[in-house]
């Protein structure tokens, strides 16, 4: 999936197939099936990944959790989420089976 197909208006959540390890710079995410290793380079981004599931859309999550100072910052986080989606760190939440907690 590329940025072109990442839809921030839908609901996303952190994948259950990853290990997420907090670090001073943000976090390391490792996907156990694909063996891809991803560096999340800001603690705020880590909060965003954790909090995605509590918001109706990725956009809403960015607004609430990141409180971006400008449009460019919002887009930077959309781009980051698109990369994480491509790497399988986050997944879309299917409306039919979504649940919280």
């Amino acid at each position: 999936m590329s940025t072109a197909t990442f839809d921030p208006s839908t609901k996303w959540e952190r994948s259950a197939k990853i290990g997420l390890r907090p670090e001073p710079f943000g976090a390391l995410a490792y996907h156990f099936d694909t063996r891809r290793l991803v560096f999340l380079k800001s603690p705020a981004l880590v909060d965003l990944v954790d909090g995605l599931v509590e918001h109706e859309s990725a956009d809403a999550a960015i607004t609430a959790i990141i409180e971006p100072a400008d449009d460019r910052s919002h887009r930077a986080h959309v781009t980051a989420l698109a990369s994480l989606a491509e790497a399988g760190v986050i997944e879309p939440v299917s409306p039919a089976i979504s649940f919280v907690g």
Partner: protein
Amino acid sequence: MEPKTDPQTTAVEEEALVEEELLVEEISIDGMCGVY
């Protein structure tokens, strides 16, 4: 924020600027030296 010029230049500028703020970096799990 820089003043916007025509939309096309702005789009290119913004694309380039977003690149500077990449918050995600990926590396192969095999991309670390010191492991066999």
